[in-house]
Structures are given as C-alpha cells and as structure tokens.
C-alpha cells in the first residue's frame, strides 16, 4: 500500500516510525492544527484569565471576537453566540475583564484562541452596564416615572403569584398569606425563574395574568441568588409585560441588596418574596382590631347622639315650662290691672266713701223714692255688709 499524506497518519503510519518522522509520512496541515487543538484543550482545564479587551467585534453571525491582553502578551479570544446570551452586555473597549474558558486552536487559521464562555468585568461592570442600558431606555419612555405607580388594593381577594411553583419564594409567600390573611386566594402562575427561558416565561406569565383579569394584584417573585440567577428579572421583555399589566404589580425578587429592572418598573418594590406578601395583604388580626375600633366609635357616636336628643328634650321641656309660667304671669297681671280699672269705675267704690245703696229683695237698685212703698222690705248695701230694712213712710221731695 502506497503511503498517502492526504489520509493522515492513522492509515499510513508504518509501525516502526512516528507519523511525520520522515517526508513519506508527513502529516497534513489540518492534522497538525487539530492535533495541536486536541493537545491544548486536553492540557488546559477551563480557566479564568484576566486581561484587557481590545479590538472587540460583535460579528453578524452572533459571535464576539476580541483580543485579550496585558502588557507582555495577548491572545485571540472568541465567545460563541450561544454563550453571549449568558453574558449580560458586550464589554467595552479597554475594559478589564476576567474571562472563563478553554484554550484552543482555530484550525482553519492555525491560530491559538481562547474560547470564552463566561465573562465578568471588574466591579460588576457588565451587569451594571446591562441594567443601566435597559434602565435608561425605559426611563426615556417614561416607564419608570413615579406617577405611573399605582396604589395597591387595600383588601385584595385574589393574589396572583408569578414564580416557580417549586421555589422557596412561593412557599414563603403562601406561609405569610396563610398567617396574615387566610381567606385571600392565591393563584400561582408558574414560570421558570432562572435559566435561558426564564425571562420569556416570566413575561408570558405576567401577560397571562393581564389577560385573565381576575386577580386584584400580582406578585412577581424569586428568592435570593447570584447576579446570574436573578438575571431574568432584568430583562426588558419582563419589564414591558409588567408595564402593560392592568393590575398593580409587586416585585419581590432576591434579597435586599439586589435592585432589578423588575423592581424599578413594578408599582411597589418589596425586598423579598415574604415582604411582597406582607405588602399585599393586611394582617387580619389588625383588621379585626380595626373592626373593633369601628364598633366602639359607632356605639360612642350613637350614645352621644341619643344623649344630645335627651338634652334637647329636657331643654325644650324647661323652655316650655318657663314660657307657660311667663304667660300665666302676664295674664294674671292683666287680670289685676283690669280689675283695678273696673274697680275704679264700679259704683261699689262709692260705698267705700260711706254711701249706701238700697236694693230690692230681688236685687234691683232702688234709686228713686217712687220705687218704695210703705212697709216694703228692702236691702241696704253698705261698704262692709247688707242690712235688711223696711220702709215706714215714703215722702217724695218736690220736683225742682
């Protein structure tokens, strides 16, 4: 069999000589580079490398190319498009980063290259950059404005919870709500809260609640985790789903230190899932107490009102009495005045001056001698009594 360089050493190598040991067993270039690649990849476990970004280029095919360098050396680096998705934002030129990946060889060019799978900039630079970029965009559209924040319903009957159905966040929320407001319904809207599909699933779940329209308030929640774990909550799609939601949204993501885009667009930001549940439902013990207070206020107000009615009645009664007394007195005064005047006019007053009046036995005044006849009985009316009398002789005086 004639040795043929095109077929590589496995087919052509002689048992007594290594491939490429002489011209007849020379290996192909591709054999050389791919062997170099295999050896390099086997020799270097995945490793973090620190360096400065230079010549960064995001290619149309989705891959990122750049050179990583320090003062002494440099290496070509690549991030395949599938891995760029787990990096929050493309790095800036000149940025100091730590890149995690494998050293390899690009056989087509015979170049050594560092294949980067993860990347971190100093001081969370990339995360901060990505969040800032989304924040600025939403802010420019006015979606973060304080006046957009809607008040939460005071006594929700049904709370939708967008979260992982198996997560600690849901357990925490259920336990807080059970304790504080057992009668409030919890409707879980399941979504992955980490991983590649999380952002999409979360935004779809929020959109589902929006379409459903039967919940009074939504909690979007996830327990604490690393920046990467919480990354879906910085996704613009989720932000827009929250903005479009017709009912108020409470964000309860991570622990207190992490502020996500989701926190910024939500109507209320709670630091944790438990805090979100506490924000949404008021403690029933507290409400029961409010009811007792209302009851006391109501009773007190009614008693006060009845007391006032009683006082009104009493006042009226006494006013009536005094009015009556005054009227009576006025009448009495009038009566005695009239009596005085009557008295002054009365012929009886004459009696007081010592005169007397003769009256017939049937009460007629006898004012003329002609009214008398001899032996006729009559009555003499005096100041202090009457005298029974009898006429003895009747003498008429001559008319003048």
């Amino acid at each position, binding site marked *: 069999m004639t040795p043929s360089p095109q077929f590589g050493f496995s087919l052509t190598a002689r048992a007594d000589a290594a491939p490429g040991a002489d011209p007849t067993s020379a290996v192909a270039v591709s054999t050389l580079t791919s062997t170099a690649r295999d050896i390099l990849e086997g020799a270097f476990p995945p490793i973090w490398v620190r360096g400065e970004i230079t010549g960064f280029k995001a290619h149309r095919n989705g891959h990122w190319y750049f050179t990583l360098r320090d003062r002494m050396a440099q290496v070509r680096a690549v991030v395949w498009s599938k891995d760029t998705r787990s990096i929050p934002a493309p790095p800036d030129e000149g940025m100091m980063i730590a890149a995690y990946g494998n050293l390899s060889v690009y056989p087509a060019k015979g170049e050594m290259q560092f294949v980067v799978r993860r990347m971190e900039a100093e001081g969370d630079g990339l995360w901060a950059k990505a969040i800032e970029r989304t924040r600025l965009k939403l802010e420019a559209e006015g979606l973060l404005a304080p006046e957009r924040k809607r008040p939460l319903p005071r*006594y929700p009957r049904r709370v*939708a919870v967008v979260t992982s159905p198996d997560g600690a966040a849901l357990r925490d929320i259920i336990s807080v709500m059970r304790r504080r407001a*057992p009668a409030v319904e919890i409707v879980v809207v399941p979504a992955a809260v980490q991983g590649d599909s999380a952002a999409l699933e979360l935004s779809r779940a929020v959109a589902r609640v929006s*379409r459903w329209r039967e919940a009074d308030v939504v909690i979007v929640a996830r327990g604490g985790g690393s920046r990467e774990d919480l990354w879906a909550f910085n996704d613009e799609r989720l932000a827009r789903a929250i903005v479009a939601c017709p009912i108020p949204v409470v964000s309860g993501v991570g622990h207190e230190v992490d502020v996500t885009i989701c926190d910024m667009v939500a109507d209320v930001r709670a630091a944790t899932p438990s805090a979100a549940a506490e924000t949404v439902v008021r403690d029933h013990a507290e409400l029961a107490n409010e009811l007792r207070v209302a009851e006391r206020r109501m009773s007190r107000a009614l008693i006060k009102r009845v007391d006032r009615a009683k006082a009104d009645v009493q006042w009226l009664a006494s006013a009536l009495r005094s009015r009556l007394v005054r009227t009576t007195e006025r009448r009495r005064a009038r009566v005695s005045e009239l009596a005085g005047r009557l008295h002054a006019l009365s012929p009886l007053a004459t009696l007081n001056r010592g005169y007397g009046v003769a009256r017939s036995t049937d009460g007629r005044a006898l004012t003329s001698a002609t009214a008398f006849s001899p032996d006729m009985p009559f009555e003499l009316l005096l100041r202090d009594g009457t005298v029974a009398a009898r006429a003895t002789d009747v003498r008429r005086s001559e008319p003048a």
Partner: protein
Amino acid sequence: MSFEQRLRRLEEIVGELESEELELDRALKLFEEGVTCLRAATEDLGKVEARVQRLVERTDGTFEVTDVRE
C-alpha cells in the same frame, strides 16, 4: 358586598354618625346598618383558608384555575 366595600361603608357610617347635624332617626338607622356590616365583615375575616390554585390558560385563550396540592 365585598369585604373592601363593607369596610368602606362602615367607615362612611362611622363618619356620618360622628358628624354633628344628624337626625336621631337617621342615626339609629345608620347604627343598625353599621352593626350588620360589622357582623358580616367579622365573618369574612373568620372564613376558612382559601385554597392555593394554579392559573392555566387553555389553547383557545380561556382560563382555568386548578387546585394545587401543597
């Protein structure tokens, strides 16, 4: 009437009862209504635990809530 509506009504009743110019007749009626409201609201608070449910959207765009085993 929902719990929220009841509480709001109760607040109105207390407010009106506490106002100065109120007919006695009206005050008595309000009080009676307030007591009914209070009783119903207190009952609401004592209701048994609501179930945890899960929202499911059907392919035709309609929704269904199903119980979740805790």
